[in-house]
């Protein structure tokens, strides 16, 4: 009896913990496991340009180079949303382009793979590396 209890008890914990995960209120407002500032830092890069439209177009063509399909874009708000199929239920990404001061543009990206937010710096580094390539091409080859 005692052994049975011992076996069941951890299971109960798992069930309780798992049901805690699905609390809709917590899910909607859950920022992340990372601190807000840290998250913003790893999701953002600043570029030395004042041209919002060109930056947005470069973001779009970079996403296309990465085999994303553009879902929607808004030039007023500066947002682009795109999806890449494959992996675990697809990678969905929203990129926002906003002026930072008068001489720079800030690009912020956030992504989720399947039903899980990406909070690791490496994927964002990879994305911005691709974007930097695109920004360089735009600036220098005028493509």
């Amino acid at each position, binding site marked *: 009896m005692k052994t049975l209890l011992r076996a069941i008890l951890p299971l109960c914990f798992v069930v309780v913990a798992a049901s805690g995960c699905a609390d809709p209120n917590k899910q909607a407002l859950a920022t992340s496991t990372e601190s807000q500032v840290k998250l913003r830092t790893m999701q953002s890069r600043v570029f030395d340009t004042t041209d919002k439209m060109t930056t947005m177009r470069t973001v779009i063509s970079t996403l*296309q180079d*990465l085999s994303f399909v553009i879902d*929607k874009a808004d*030039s007023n708000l500066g947002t682009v949303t795109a999806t890449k*199929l494959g992996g675990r239920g697809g990678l969905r990404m929203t990129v926002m382009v906003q002026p930072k001061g008068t001489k720079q543009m800030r690009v912020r990206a956030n992504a989720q*793979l399947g039903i899980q937010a990406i909070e690791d710096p490496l994927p*964002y580094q*990879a994305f911005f590396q*691709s974007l930097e390539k695109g920004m360089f091409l735009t600036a220098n080859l005028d493509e």
Partner: protein
Amino acid sequence: MKVLPQLRVFALLLLAAVAGGCANHAQISKDMLTLAPESMRNRQLQTKRYDTNDEKMVLTASASVLQDLGFQLDESTPDLGIIVGSKTRDATDAGQVTMAIFVAALGGGSMPIDKQQTIRVSLVTAPMARPKVKSANAQPPKKLTPEVINAACARVSGKLQQSLTDEFRDVLPVADASLAGKALADQFARELNGDLTQRMKNQDFGATRVRVTFQRVVMNTQGFVSRMEALETPELYKEFYEKLSKSVFLEANDI
């Protein structure tokens, strides 16, 4: 007490699976956000260049082609040159149906088969700028449009008619002088209009590129997504751009 070591192993395995899943999650996303070696090939496959700077015209022509192909337009952002469309079609595959019947006949119950697919298309146009003008004070070429040409011709014709009529007044009756002045001025305006229009058509304004991507999501008879994939057959893109080239030509010539 005997259960405990097994539980411990189980817990460890669970932990490993969770941790492994996390690491894998980051790795998969990183791979998905890194430029693949074939990205350049895909870019070439999916992109076509048109020798016009009229991005709106190319976008309109693209929207028409998508409609020709039976797509519903879901989103459009003309200032960024984006059109997103989709269509839902039958995805029943004869091979799968045969297989399902075979399984059912053997008593395997009903096997889900592909039922319908949603094909999504996203099309992006972008201006391809010409080489930058090097010197700082170089003027960009003056843009000719039918409106600009008409206005210029009207101005010149008015001035010309006035001065011709004044000149003719010495040698001709007043009514004849104004008639002759008008006729000559009109003829000149027509010629000027023709010349400028010809020039407008020949002027190189740059180019516009179009990049299109297709993907499809297949649902089976149980309502589950059975397949999600990007469509990357070269023939598909070739055929699409053949249609678009025709459409751009028709649009450019107002047909």
